[in-house]
């Protein structure tokens, strides 16, 4: 009996989490999907910068345009309340992110500005792509260092 009770207590929070309101789940999926979409376009640019893939201006501009478009998203859309680590399973966003939304917006703005410059920036050769990847990558690091759980 005691065992059953203990098991019931252990399972209850898990159930609560499983039935978590789906809006929160969707918001988390959207945020991580957003990051994945950014990465999917950063990957080919980084490979070109390193020389793992031959420089191809059309391809570089294509991915840079995608990043510029992704930069237009707003922070509010992806960082909905109640989606911090500890509030929803699978989230690696630190709770302090929501206490510093102005700073988060500024850091996202840095990414947006770097991404907006990318389509022109990547033209002209491998070295150009390298410089763009550096400036974009710096904006990922600045935000992850502060607001993403290690």
């Amino acid at each position: 009996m005691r065992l059953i009770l203990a098991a019931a207590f252990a399972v209850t929070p898990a159930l609560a989490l499983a039935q978590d309101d789906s809006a929160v789940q969707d918001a988390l999926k959207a945020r991580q999907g957003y990051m994945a979409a950014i990465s999917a376009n950063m990957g080919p640019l980084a490979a070109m910068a390193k020389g793992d893939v031959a420089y191809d201006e059309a391809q570089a501009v294509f991915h840079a345009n995608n990043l510029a478009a992704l930069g237009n998203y707003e922070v509010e859309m992806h960082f909905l309340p109640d989606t911090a680590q500890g509030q929803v399973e699978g989230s690696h966003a630190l709770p302090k992110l929501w206490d510093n939304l102005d700073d988060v917006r500024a850091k996202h703005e840095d990414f947006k500005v770097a991404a907006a410059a990318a389509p022109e920036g990547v033209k002209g050769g491998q070295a150009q792509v390298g410089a763009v990847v550096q400036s974009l990558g710096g904006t990922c690091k600045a935000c992850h260092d502060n607001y993403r759980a290690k």
Partner: protein
Amino acid sequence: MEPVREKLWDPALRAFHWLLAFFVIAAWVLGKFGPANMWLHFWCGYAVAGLLVFRLIWGFVGPEPARFRHFLTGPGKMLRYARGMFRRVPSYWPGHNPLGALSVIAMLLVLAAQVGSGLVSDPDDFINVGPLAGQVSQATSRAAVGWHNLGAVLILALVILHVGVILFYRFWKREDLVRPMLTGWKLVRRDD
């Protein structure tokens, strides 16, 4: 028995010690506060890796005080040393004392783990990806960022402990351990 001045630490070991201190501190500070592009941090880490390899070899083939078997003793000896440790007299110990040996090994192990986790880290920024991150699974390279972060805390704690104990010897036990690591010469007593 009177303590005697003896050439204890060989030049290579002393060079190792100060280079390690320099590159670990440089790597640590660059990791926390350095520029967004961490290439200098990486190279400090590689320097640490090289120094660790040297120390491993030196621990087997170097002069007596540098050898692991010389300073790695059993718990009995450690306990005996720890009991007398707070007496306000210099230890005159000819090498790493039995307790200090633990701290030496702890530092070498944590630093090795730090280099290892750094090599396979992928912090998802496309500019500071560890050179071996592609050789492990994505889950591992992501987790490695967490281990590396934890390792940084452990290293800070060990360094503070290390410096704290040196100060304890200097001002409580009135024994200067820094100068011997600079010159090689130390007052020692071998009575057991």
